């Protein structure tokens, strides 16, 4: 089977004009997964999801079933919080999942609540996503009316209320503890972990599971079709399918649900049904594999499969599933500046290295672009990065509270190490880099591991 033949698990209703209505949802198998789940015990559902190896689709890629098990036993109430604050540059899959198939998400939330033991869930939707908010609100009303949500669902002992909460438009609220702060009515600023691991001390300091929209959207299918069917797709730990958002210099930017762990970046960027190749048939210069926070990959990495652990070994991540493509004509200094500027502006201001460091980085890059750079600025950029993300290692060791500050160092390390000549051109001559960087180029060459596995 060609990689492009994978079944659609979460995006099956994207092409239906009325896929967001409860009628169409039920007519296309909706709420069957919930019924299947309710026939099991909650721990049975957890085991099923564990054996499906459903990795979190928000960025960190942690197995959902394992995360659910982190709640301290016997402590109630527990809350399920849906992270619908999708704001990573290049990422726009959750928005479509919420706009085009809100009931699938709601059903996933209900299954999650049943598994974890929550009677209250909060759907936190990014402030700018007006259509998603409207459709979810409508879907919640319809699902309440139809008895899918509420007290004693389907006559069982299981009762859930789901609250829709609109964000106010801050990137940082995509970070789970900042989202919880925002949900509590406070300024969205991350909490320190430890002690504020949400599973132990989350919303209102109660055990809280924060799951990504796409993660939960997989649950109805897994319950209806079984973990085995899900795990049959994909490779290594990366099972099932996953939606990738492709943007930048490709012919067909868009979201594509592909088989996880098997499909390669080359498939995703060049297959006619996916990215369709680089626009104007130019050469690929570099691409970001998992959202703006991720260190970059280059043409030699095109045959790397979209598999979490494999990409992680390279020193980067699949993150939020956003692949951003730079063609050969891209000015990498400006690309770097644009990315850093995003992080500088979205820094919440809570902790010093991120608040001061990211904007300092932005100012230096701006100065370089304005032709006022100094040769020592490259070392300075890297040393500032080092003071935010110690050693610029992967996975990062940060001086900050949350990973936002460290995210701003990824594009700089990637760009400076790989495209030093472009920086030197701005600086008016060759620049020497003396700061020792342990991680970056971060990204190492891709060695296909099957060969060593056979040996």
């Amino acid at each position: 089977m060609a990689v492009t033949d994978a079944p659609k698990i979460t995006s099956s209703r994207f092409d239906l004009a009325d896929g967001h209505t409860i009628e169409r949802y039920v007519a296309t198998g909706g709420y069957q997964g919930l019924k299947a789940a309710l026939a099991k015990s909650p721990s049975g559902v957890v085991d099923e999801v564990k054996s499906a190896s459903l990795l979190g689709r928000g960025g960190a890629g942690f197995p959902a079933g394992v995360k659910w098990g982190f709640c301290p036993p016997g402590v109630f109430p527990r809350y399920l919080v849906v992270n619908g604050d999708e704001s990573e540059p290049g990422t726009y899959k959750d928005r479509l999942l919420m706009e085009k198939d809100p009931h699938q998400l709601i059903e996933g939330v209900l299954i999650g609540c049943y598994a974890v033991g929550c009677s209250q869930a909060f759907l936190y939707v990014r402030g700018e996503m007006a259509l998603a908010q409207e459709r979810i609100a409508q879907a919640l009303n319809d699902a309440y009316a139809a008895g899918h949500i509420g007290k004693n669902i389907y006559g069982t002992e299981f009762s859930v209320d789901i609250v829709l909460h609109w964000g106010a438009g801050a990137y940082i609220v995509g970070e789970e503890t900042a989202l919880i702060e925002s949900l509590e009515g406070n300024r969205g600023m991350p909490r320190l972990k430890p002690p504020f691991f949400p599973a132990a001390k989350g919303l209102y300091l109660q055990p809280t599971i924060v799951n990504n929209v796409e993660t939960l959207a997989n649950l109805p299918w897994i319950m209806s079709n079984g973990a085995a069917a899900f795990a049959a797709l994909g490779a290594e730990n990366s099972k099932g399918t996953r939606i990738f958002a492709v943007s930048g210099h490709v012919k067909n930017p868009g979201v594509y649900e592909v088989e996880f762990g098997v499909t390669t970046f080359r498939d995703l960027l060049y297959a006619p049904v996916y990215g369709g190749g680089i626009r104007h048939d130019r050469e690929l210069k570099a691409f970001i594999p998992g959202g703006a926070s991720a260190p970059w990959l280059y043409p030699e990495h095109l045959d790397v499969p979209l598999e979490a652990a494999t990409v992680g070994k390279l020193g980067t991540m699949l993150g939020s599933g956003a692949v951003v493509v730079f063609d050969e004509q891209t000015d990498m200094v400006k690309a770097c500046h644009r990315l850093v500027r995003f992080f500088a502006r979205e820094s919440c201001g809570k902790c010093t290295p991120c608040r001061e460091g990211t904007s300092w980085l932005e100012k230096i890059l701006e100065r370089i672009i304005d032709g006022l750079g100094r040769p020592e600025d490259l070392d300075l950029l890297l040393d500032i990065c080092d003071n935010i993300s110690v050693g610029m290692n992967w996975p990062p060791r940060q001086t900050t509270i949350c990973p936002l500050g460290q995210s701003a160092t990824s594009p700089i390390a990637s760009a400076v190490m790989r495209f030093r000549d472009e920086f030197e051109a701005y600086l008016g001559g060759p620049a020497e880099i003396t700061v020792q960087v342990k991680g970056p180029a971060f990204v190492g060459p891709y060695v296909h591991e099957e060969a060593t596995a056979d040996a």
Partner: protein
Amino acid sequence: MPEAPAETAVAITVNGKAIAARPGELVIDAAERNGVYIPRFCYHHRMEPVGMCRMCLVEVDTGRGMALQPSCMLTVAPDMVVETESPVAKKAQDGILEFLLINHPLDCPVCDKGGECPLQDHTVAFGPGESRFVEEKRHYEKPISISENVYLDRERCILCDRCTRFAKDVAGDTLIHFQDRGNGTQINTFPDHPFASYFSGNTVQICPVGALTAKPYRFKARPWDLDVVESTCTDCAVGCRIVIDGSRNEVLRYAGVDSDPVNWSWLCDKGRFGFEKVGADARLSAPLVKETNGDLVETRWADALTQAARAIKAGLDKNGPGGTAIIGGAHLTNESAYAWAKLAKGVIGTDNVDAQLGDGLPAAMVAGMARATIDEACVAGGTLLVIGSDPKDELAVLFLRIRDAVTLHKTTVVELSPRATSLSEIAAHSLRSVPGAVHELVNQIIAGEGDLAPVRAALANDHLTVLLGRGSMAESAEATVAAAAALLAAFPNVKFLSGLRRANVHGALDLGLTPGFLPGRVTLDDGRAWFTEAWDTVPAEPGLDAAGILAAAADGRIDTLILLGADPLADFPDRELATRGLKGARTVIAVETLLNSSSAFAHIVLPAAGAAEVDGTTTNIEGRVSTVRQKVTPPGTARPDWMIAAELAFRLGADLNITDAASAWAEIERLSAAHAGMTAEALGNEPDGLIVGRTEPDVERPAMVSFSAPAFEAPAVDAYSLRLVTTRRLYDQGTLVSHSPSLAGLAVSGSLLANPTDLDRLGVAPSGNVKVSSPRGAITAAVEPDATVPPGTVVLAWNQGDPSPNALIDAAAPVTEVRLETTS
């Protein structure tokens, strides 16, 4: 605090050195206690840590390898290995300091904080020598005013969250906030919501940079030019420990000292900025005598004292000792209070002495009840019953301690008051009592039926403390006394924390400036033998309290009335009686730091030294004796109060044997049953002070009084009238506030608050002026409907200028019933 016993200590290693940490202790504290200072900006040990500034990053190994962790958020764990000076930790600290400095202006030479600035100090100790930042720093308008007394310079701010945490978590005044984000993050108030907190000055003190500065101190001094003494604030009776900073014989500011049992380094703005009265232009600097034309003119001390002594002597000859009376003394040091008590009771022989102005509680009760400390009142899991006190307005820093106990340590507050107070929000039970009949509510709670069962259950706590004050001047203290007696009978383990608010009123009561008592909480009868030996004479009969003195004076039975830092016209509840009393006394001698409204009646005014001008001790609500210190010389020829007493005694042919504060204290320690063992040396060894009455006196000394209450029946509610309640505000029109320019503008004039249904029932328009009349008098006041005022009650603020409720109150009546009429 003592070292943790070995078996409960947590063994950790800091920089290679083994340390015994306390269970639950933060790494930053454990290290500091053992001599390793970890740099910090956001961490303040009196507030919850937030780990924001990242300055205290250290390398920590808890078994999974070294990792950078903020030591202010990390609790010690067994076998933890901490490196505060490893290359990685140093690089991180270096980097953070550089980040903090890139946008920090280099205006240290004109910054009030320069010289005592943690950012400066840390930069020298932990930071890079040079900045690599060549970009433009961020700019804001410098400085903006965020409250009446605080400026904010956002360019200097390092966004450590100390001030905002203080406002939100400690004071409960969530008025300053983080705004905007990223590099544009700033602290600010919201439009039209200034940082109008009673505690705003604390943010200046805890700001680790010069972002928050105090207007009264702005550009007044450089820290290295200041010299400092540690003292106690005497603006109210909490007894906050302070340092007095001054330069060239001028007091420039107060700062809070972290006294663990009392103020935790916090001060209220009234205390902090009230230092301005020390050097007020209007301070009396020479004695005054009244000329025949009625003008007070300056004279020499010798003439004024001779005239005063002559007046006292004439009164003695004519009416005996009872012809001399003293009102006031609560603003004196303990030593001065003792000197005046000795002069009155041991030399003149009068017992007509009262440090309270009919606005307090009976001395027998305050001195005789089992007293609690603030720590005992705020004990975790305990219950605090509040009667007749609004601590935020009367004993401001006590409110912070109570708030901390409730919000962080599960202390239960039960509040009984005629109207909602600042504690109502955090009280587990906030109940409204009928003015003048709080004891009836207490009896119902003790019976504990129906809705009151949970209240009774809350009181049935091993740690029950009653904060007992005199909230409303419009009712007598009898109901409060009866309530205390009922509580004592029902809960024998109950302890009381006095809510009396005036400066050293507790010291004055303890040292005998109250009728019926001699120094050391002993009654005249119990102490007669002991003090006759020491003093030659002791009054034969208990004398009159302030109300009795004023009534006697009005009847012409008082020849000489001495006002000892007292303003009966403003502070005595019954202005009509106060006026008649002041007019009726033949000679009025006022011993004052500043002229007040009653001074117009004085024939002789003797200038006294005030706060920061005298050495000695003061006693707080707990009975805690702590030292006050002289920082500056008194204005002109003003003298300490004890010296004035000694001079008068000399002119009356006696010798008080007091030559300075120390000799007065030595005599107090030697004679007082309650102060036995509190030697100057013992006090010097304990900066937090010692508590009166907690040492075992030797057997010879007279027994201290114990409390028993007379029966009291509240008058029935008169359905045709409304009962008046008076409330206090921190900033009033009192003499001391009025002469502190930074505070004077904060006092607002009061209006009459009434329940809208009452106004409706009476046909009184809910705006405009009303005539308020009582059997005693009538005033005109602006009316303001307020649904939180219980029906049948009206509320007027005390001492906020005109209209003043003391025109309505009859000191002899148990409650004040008023009627409202619309004025045309």
